[in-house]
């Protein structure tokens, strides 16, 4: 086989090493189409991010560029007690809300898959509605729901059960629980939508085959439904983790990091550092930590899915 033929074969099956220019020449229409998006992303996203990274090495404040200070902001961060606390609590908050959102979302999707058509659309709209409500509005709803003096939940608990209610937004462990539950309520719909789509896509034949083989309801769920849900689960995990790390509006509305600073999340601390203390460079540095958390989680999930894929190969 001549050298030339071999090259042609490699080219034909896309095995030939190509340079960037070759690829541009070959797919120029495609590149042309992504240019506007790329430009907008550069202006609105990549540039601010790169600038944000640079600013963490400066002492930038409100409206002022600031000068280079090396790692000062990072050393401030590492020696700051409130940051240590906020970091730990953010991890707990993210873990708790992401997990709850998965579980509630899964149940919502399963419930929907059981409903006969007709009611299905309405039910799904109602079940998923919290996800489409404004987070601040959600915060206000929960604040009134949990309000110790006028709220519905304390009223129900004390009137019907005759038990003294804890103060949900102030007492001991309750503010933490309240924040996690309220956030899960707001965003479980996201998991629900993805799970519902995945469940619809599971071939009915597999259920029939399983039923014929004598599998009961639970067994069918375990052996047919669950395996189809592994990939959606990991997507939901990756996305919800990132969003929950950055979650701000609803916790801010509900406790604002209080009582005192007992429920201070990194997102609220970032806001406070930027807009109360006007130390933007420190706020960016805090933002870096949040990115780091999201990225670590994302890398972890990708590794997991890779391992999972290897099982199938």
């Amino acid at each position, binding site marked *: 086989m001549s050298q030339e033929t071999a090259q042609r074969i490699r080219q034909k099956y896309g095995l030939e090493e190509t340079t960037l220019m070759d690829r541009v020449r070959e797919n120029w229409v495609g590149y042309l189409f992504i240019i506007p998006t790329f430009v907008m992303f550069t202006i609105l996203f990549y540039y601010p991010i790169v600038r*944000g990274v640079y600013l963490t090495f400066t002492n930038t404040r409100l409206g002022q560029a600031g000068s280079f200070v090396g790692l000062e902001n990072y050393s401030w961060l590492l020696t700051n007690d409130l940051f240590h606390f906020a970091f730990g609590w953010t991890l707990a908050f993210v873990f708790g809300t992401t997990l709850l959102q998965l579980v509630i979302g899964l149940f919502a999707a399963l419930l929907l898959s059981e409903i006969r058509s007709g009611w299905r659309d309405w039910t799904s709209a109602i079940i998923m509605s919290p996800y489409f409500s404004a987070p601040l509005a959600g915060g206000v709803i929960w604040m009134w729901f949990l309000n110790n003096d006028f709220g519905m939940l304390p009223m129900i608990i004390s009137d019907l059960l005759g038990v003294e209610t804890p103060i949900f937004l*102030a007492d001991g462990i309750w503010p933490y629980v309240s924040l996690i539950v309220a956030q899960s309520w707001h965003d479980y719909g996201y998991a629900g939508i993805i799970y519902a789509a995945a469940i619809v896509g599971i071939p009915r034949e597999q259920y029939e085959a399983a039923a014929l083989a004598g599998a009961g309801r639970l067994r069918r769920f375990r052996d047919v439904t669950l395996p189809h849900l592994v990939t959606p689960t990991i997507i939901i995990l990756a996305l919800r983790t990132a969003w929950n790390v950055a979650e701000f509006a609803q916790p801010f509305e509900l406790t604002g990091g209080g009582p*005192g600073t007992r429920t201070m999340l990194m997102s609220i601390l970032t806001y406070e550092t930027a807009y109360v203390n006007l130390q933007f460079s420190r706020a960016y540095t805090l933002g870096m930590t949040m990115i780091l958390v*999201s990225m670590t989680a*994302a890398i972890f999930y990708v590794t997991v899915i890779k391992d999972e894929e290897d099982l199938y190969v």
Partner: protein
Amino acid sequence: MSRIGTDGGASSDHADNESGENPSRRRFMRSAAAVSTVGALGALAGCTGGGEDNSGGGDDSGSDSGSDSSGSESITIDYLNAQAVENSSTKAHFQESLKSFEEKQGDVTVKLQTASYGDIRSKLASTVSSGNPPTMAESGGGGLQFYLDGKVPDHSPFIEGTDRLPGDYTAANLDSAQYRGEYWSAGGMRHTNSNLGISPKLFSQVGVSDPFEELSTWSGFLDAVEKIDEQTDAIGYEETGVPGDLESYWGYARAAYTGGTDPWIRQSDDPDNPTIVVANEDHEDQGKTDGMMKTCVKMAQEFSSEESAQRGDEEIPSLMLTGKVASFNYAVPTANRWRAIKEDVQFGWNGGEGDFMLLPHPKVDAEFGSNFGISELEGVEGEHGGHMWALEQQQTIFNASDAEQNAAWDLNMFLLGDDEFVLPAWGEHYEALPGLQPKLQRILDEYELAQSTEQAYKNTDTYGKQYATTGAAWDVRDTDPIRWTDINETISEAIAGQHSIEETPSLVRSRIQDRLGQ
């Protein structure tokens, strides 16, 4: 914005996956991971505050008014303000007044943009950093930062160009508008002040009959609160302990002093290194300052609800009007916020039958320290009217052409001094104290005011000379972080039980020291 983008991306990726091809799953996981990372980056990018946020809430007030009538070139100024959206009636009043200002000027158009007090700082920061600041804004303490960064001109020439300023400014305005002797601001349109607020029904129930006498000292007040605590189900005293509303403490912190002496920070020979009085072992006044700080935490712990570290002042009217709270130290002149809860609310004592009454903050008496177990305050006496909000309402003119700046200054003088605007604004729509001293009496003469408003005015009259807004006199760049974070948040943590009463002053001190680089 980025949120919608990423969510959409995820679901389309998901559809790919549903086709059941394994290779696409890998690709889709990669993109999901990328998208999630970008999601977090988005939070950061959001923080850089790209200037696209300056359109919301804008109100174009009467842009068609008489710019053609005079032969001169017409000028348009942008004016960003939070006051106009305090309630619905202030907004209408602002719009009408601006229209009449435009008519009077002939060649000026004012574009009013509004933002709530919660949003105005970030909105202003993003417009300034994108190089598109308004001509004038209710910048609050942030305006000082912009002044120090060269985004705001020296306001002295404007002030010196008038025949009534700075003489007519209230003491609080005069204090707030200056930084180390330079005018960085044009003053604030109005102030409010913090006072003692009580429920006459609950206080009369425990035997108080002359509140002006019996509640005039901290010992007398403490005695009554203790009785309410023991004899009724109500909360005797509720601290508004969320860091953003601990101005209540600012109000009475000065009561251990006389003459309005600053309890926290005093200027020294080196303006960059002022003297911190808090927890300062070498300072003769340490006990007074630390003592009142401890009083704040102890009052909250002994009498307030367990939510007091979270309590915002907006919640108090409904709690007091339903008999749940007997007193608080964040009573402001604005009667409308009480009427909003209960239309026929009874202001004043009314023979012990009133719903809400406003009094001066109690005086610290020599026995209070031993009565309440705060040893630092034993033998200490002092009095002070309350806290005056003045920094928050400061208005600044930003760098612009001379014509625009002059038009903005004219607008400022109109908002400060024109009776047509000033009297209804602060006497009717949003009861508050005007920014120019002579207007106070004018409003008192003009309007039949609720007891709470009238008393708040009287307190200003009595204590006006020593009234000062917290932090204005420190003349340091970080006034806001020191008062909101280092002082208030630390005290709020103490109320929430995160650290002890005893260590609170020293924690506040070390945080202020860090902030000032001492």
